[in-house]
């Protein structure tokens, strides 16, 4: 970069502004870790709960969801390490991070509120999970994630009106459309893809 004080044309000024702003765009690939990690963790928990409910006499199959607790720590630790290593913090990244943090807090509150009727947890958590998914899709301008957020709302309705068995199966299927498919599509993109 030229550092001398010299006359610039208007076009040069605009080019510098455009070039520099493009360099602060969000690296979209970094979001794929959380989508894939949570997608698979929730698929594991929800399918295990369904199988225990269907094929065993276990009284409280929802206990399998306690696997989510170490998952939260893994996710937070990953984000913390990435954040510490980052040499720049863009506003897009901050909005992205805090939208997901708000979802985490909302999930804990929901867990407390619904702890006496865990069987009906699915539609509520899908409704709340749709919000950061949908917003993140817009932040990184990635349509599969926007569609994933919408699919969460549709599966939440299916889970509510479809009876207990559909409610239990809605969650793993929603993970496929909301986290796993967008997560793998995101991962396929190169490191240089920015939005």
């Amino acid at each position, binding site marked *: *970069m*030229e*550092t*001398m*004080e*010299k*006359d*610039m044309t*208007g*076009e*040069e*000024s*605009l080019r*510098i*502004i455009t*070039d*520099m*702003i493009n*360099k*602060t*765009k969000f690296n979209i690939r970094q979001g794929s870790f959380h989508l894939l990690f949570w997608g698979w963790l929730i698929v594991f928990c929800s399918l295990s709960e369904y199988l225990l409910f269907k094929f065993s006499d276990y009284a409280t199959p929802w206990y399998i969801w306690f696997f989510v607790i170490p998952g939260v720590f893994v996710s937070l630790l990953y984000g913390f390490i990435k954040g*510490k290593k980052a*040499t*720049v*913090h*863009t*506003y*897009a990244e*901050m909005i992205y991070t805090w939208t997901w943090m708000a979802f985490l807090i909302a999930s804990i509150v929901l867990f407390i509120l619904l702890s006496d009727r865990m069987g009906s947890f699915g539609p509520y958590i899908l409704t709340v999970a749709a919000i950061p998914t949908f917003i993140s899709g817009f932040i990184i301008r990635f349509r599969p994630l926007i569609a994933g957020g919408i699919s969460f709302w549709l599966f939440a309705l299916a889970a509510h009106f479809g009876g207990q068995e559909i409610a239990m199966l809605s969650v793993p299927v929603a993970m496929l459309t909301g986290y796993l498919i967008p997560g793998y599509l995101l991962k396929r993109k190169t490191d240089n893809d920015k939005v």
Partner: protein
Amino acid sequence: MIKFKDLDPLLHSQLRLAVISLLMNSEAAEFTWIREQTGATAGNLSIQITKLKEAGYIEVEKKFRNNYPQTLCRITSMGREKFTEYVNALKEYLNPDKSRI
């Protein structure tokens, strides 16, 4: 019609304009990252950052991370305002018939 001499002289410089443009979208950026993005030498960048800091366009925070010194730069609300004014003036210069936005 706006002339180039009417543009903010502090921003109408390649490296300072690049620094402010980088900081517009960032909550905070490290000196090393700004140097990588602009391709400037550390000495030159340091001089330009000091000018921007003295004018109140940016804030500079020095701290340590893992025992290494770290210099963080942030744009101030004044810097944001001046950048917006600069872009508006530039638009007016380039498209004198169009109204400011």
